[in-house]
């Protein structure tokens, strides 16, 4: 079975909410929309305090080409434009909307009817995706229309759909595949048409046999799309690792992007959002969110409107357990610990994970015994023990030579270290500093 070639680890999967039906989450009293929900320029508000909005009304325009518009997920009245602490832990500008009723824009097709025909031209598809504010739903939130506009001189050869969901605990993509397989496949067809290719791969890890079987069965009706089962290994959902696993090509170090090897990678949730945007005229304002944790009464997958506070999801899944030590936005390997439970669900919120105080504790740090397990685990072929030491000793020059900038911060090194060393913490610190030095140098040129 296929997988990526270098490094990787296999954390306990803990997919507690696997196989649970997607349940719609109740509307919040107030929805909060941070203006930076994507990589690139923040969106610019196009509503003012006191304006009435409907579900699907645009409330902020894209702030540039690499940016995305934001749409209201609720109907009601704009209460204020203020700031909120989001999943990154920083205070960011945001639009607050008080919810009144649930009135949708008339342009949105709310029927469940499956449409598998589309006569739009590629550029019309990309335009509709852009106008719906669709971004990568896997967590990085890169605006989708940018990825579908290859830079001059490059040519896409295939679309790879990331449905591996290699993060432990998360099951949002899994549940979506089980309930909306045809819509996803149609979304993939649209993406393939948008970049003018005839080959599409849907990569699913082997721990989801039901999804592999269902998608393979349904894919028979969609020419050019092939389901690729992959061996379970983290970080297979990393873009570079995924391309390596599926088509055996390795994307060179930045500034090269996947199109350099002919690949356009999109998350499976994004494919679904593309279907809704193009076929149903529905902008991106809701998503599946996994709420999970070992002490949680009822781990679930919720269809959640953007802007809903995480606390509401936790309540619906049985309430915050007594022993909670950490709330994590995303999965345990790359997710971020949140400052509070009032953080709103955004386009990139794939999960909310509650960890007990005991699980949150790190083991006592010991001397590095040079076992080389971090070197074996690193999927980028780096030497984490060395990079961490260079960070400690502030040797930025050597760290740059040792390719620290290619680190994808997947956390395999810290995960695997028998001495409980905070390897990635040091590497991140070092990488940020080296990145700053490189930017400064480039500006002087």
């Amino acid at each position, binding site marked *: 079975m296929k997988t990526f070639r*270098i490094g990787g*680890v296999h*954390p*306990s999967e803990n997919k507690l909410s696997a196989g649970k039906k997607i349940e719609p989450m109740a509307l919040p009293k107030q929805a909060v929309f941070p203006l930076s929900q994507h990589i690139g320029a923040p969106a610019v508000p196009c509503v003012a305090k006191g304006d009435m909005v409907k579900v699907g009304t645009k409330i902020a325009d894209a702030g540039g080409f690499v940016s995305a518009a934001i749409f209201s997920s609720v109907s009601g009245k704009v209460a204020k434009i203020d700031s909120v602490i989001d999943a990154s832990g920083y205070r960011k500008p945001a639009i607050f909307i008080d919810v009144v009723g649930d009135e949708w824009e008339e342009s949105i097709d709310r029927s469940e009817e499956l449409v598998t025909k589309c006569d739009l031209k590629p550029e019309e598809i990309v335009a509709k995706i852009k106008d719906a504010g669709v971004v990568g739903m896997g967590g990085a939130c890169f605006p989708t229309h940018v990825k579908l506009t290859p830079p001059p001189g490059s040519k896409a050869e295939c679309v790879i759909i990331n449905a591996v969901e290699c993060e*432990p605990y998360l099951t949002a993509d899994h549940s979506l595949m089980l309930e909306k397989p045809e819509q996803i496949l149609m979304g993939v067809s649209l993406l393939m048409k948008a970049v003018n290719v005839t080959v599409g791969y849907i990569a699913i890890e082997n721990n989801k046999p039901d999804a592999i079987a269902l998608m393979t069965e349904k894919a028979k009706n969609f020419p050019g799309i092939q389901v690729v089962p992959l061996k379970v290994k983290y970080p297979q959902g990393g873009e*570079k690792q995924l391309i*390596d696993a599926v088509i055996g090509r*390795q*994307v*060179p*170090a930045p500034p090269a992007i996947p199109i350099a090897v002919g690949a356009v990678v999109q998350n499976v949730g994004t494919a679904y959002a593309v279907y809704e945007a193009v076929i149903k005229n529905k902008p991106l304002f809701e998503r599946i969110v996994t709420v999970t944790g070992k002490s949680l009464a009822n781990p679930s997958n919720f269809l959640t409107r953007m802007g809903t506070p995480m606390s509401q999801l936790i309540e619906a899944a049985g309430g915050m357990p007594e022993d909670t030590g*950490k709330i*994590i936005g995303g999965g*345990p*390997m*790359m*997710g*971020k*610990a949140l400052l509070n439970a009032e953080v709103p669900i955004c386009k990139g919120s794939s999960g909310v*994970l509650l*960890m007990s105080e005991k*699980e*949150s504790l*790190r*083991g006592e740090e*010991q*001397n*590095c*015994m*040079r*076992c*080389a*397990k971090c*070197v*074996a685990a*690193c*999927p*980028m*072929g*780096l*030497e984490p*023990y060395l990079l961490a030491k260079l960070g400690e000793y502030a040797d930025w020059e050597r760290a740059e030579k040792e*390719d620290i900038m*290619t680190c994808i*911060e997947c*956390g395999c090194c*810290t*995960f*695997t*270290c*028998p*001495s*409980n060393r*905070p390897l*990635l*913490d040091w590497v*991140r610190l070092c990488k940020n500093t080296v990145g700053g030095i490189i930017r400064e140098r480039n500006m002087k040129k």
Partner: protein
Amino acid sequence: MSPHVHSGDSVSKNMRWVIIAMLPAMLWSFYAFGMGAVIVTAVSVASCVFFEWAINKYILKNDKCTVCDLSAVVTGILLAFNLPSNLPLYIIIIGALFAIGVVKMTFGGLGCNLFNPALAARVFLLISFPVKMTVFPEVGQMTAYADAVTAATPMANLADTSLLDLFLGNVGGSLGEVSALCLLLGLVILLASRTITWHIPVSILVTVFALTGLLHIAYPVEVATPWHHLFGGGLMLGAIFMATDYVTSPMTPKGQLIYGFCIGFLTVAIRVFGAYPEGMSFAILIMNAFVPLINNACKPKRFAKEVKK
């Protein structure tokens, strides 16, 4: 900061696997050399642990329990594995003090030492007590210790020794080195528990086998068969438990192969052409010194990039 989960692996878990892997050879030594082996092992382990604890507490004034990581126990057993079973107690204690006190703790404890502590101590004792360190009790004296009947190592006239005896361990020698079978069992345990990878032991054993094979074909009388070299002396012990020491071996598979090849080459050179009948300890210690260089020269294969010089 992510990641928020951990594999659960720990230093002491790895050390525990090493100890488990050493058990077959240790039990064989108790069976072959009787009381003497038990006394030497017990004293060696006890003094290694004591010295690490005492140095931490009274010299470094450090509250951390580094004894709990079991690395001192591993050093103690390995040191005992390298000693004859009739060695006087004071020599064992000097060896332990040298291993822990000089080779390990002065450099900063676990992970910081350049040389393998047990091996450096063995060589230190070999040079300091050349006679006592090179006569070994004969097998099968269950109750003997200081009064055991001794003979020189079979390495002195390797070609005349029965191959089966070498393989099983029915020969004189240091405690842990005699039974190739038990040591290979240890290798299987280390590999199965993923404590080590195959690169170092296999590259050493293959190199020694190939080189002595060629030499045996060229000089059938002077050089023993490659099988004798493989199963005789400290080769197995060194290749499986000494050269694979995390701290003093290279970090990448490629570096480990080079390291293993060089150890094999040096071992054969010393055994066949040198003044000592046994070359494993020297070969490993010499290569220990090259590990930082090997680490610098052998980078792992970076993603999407050919290996840079």
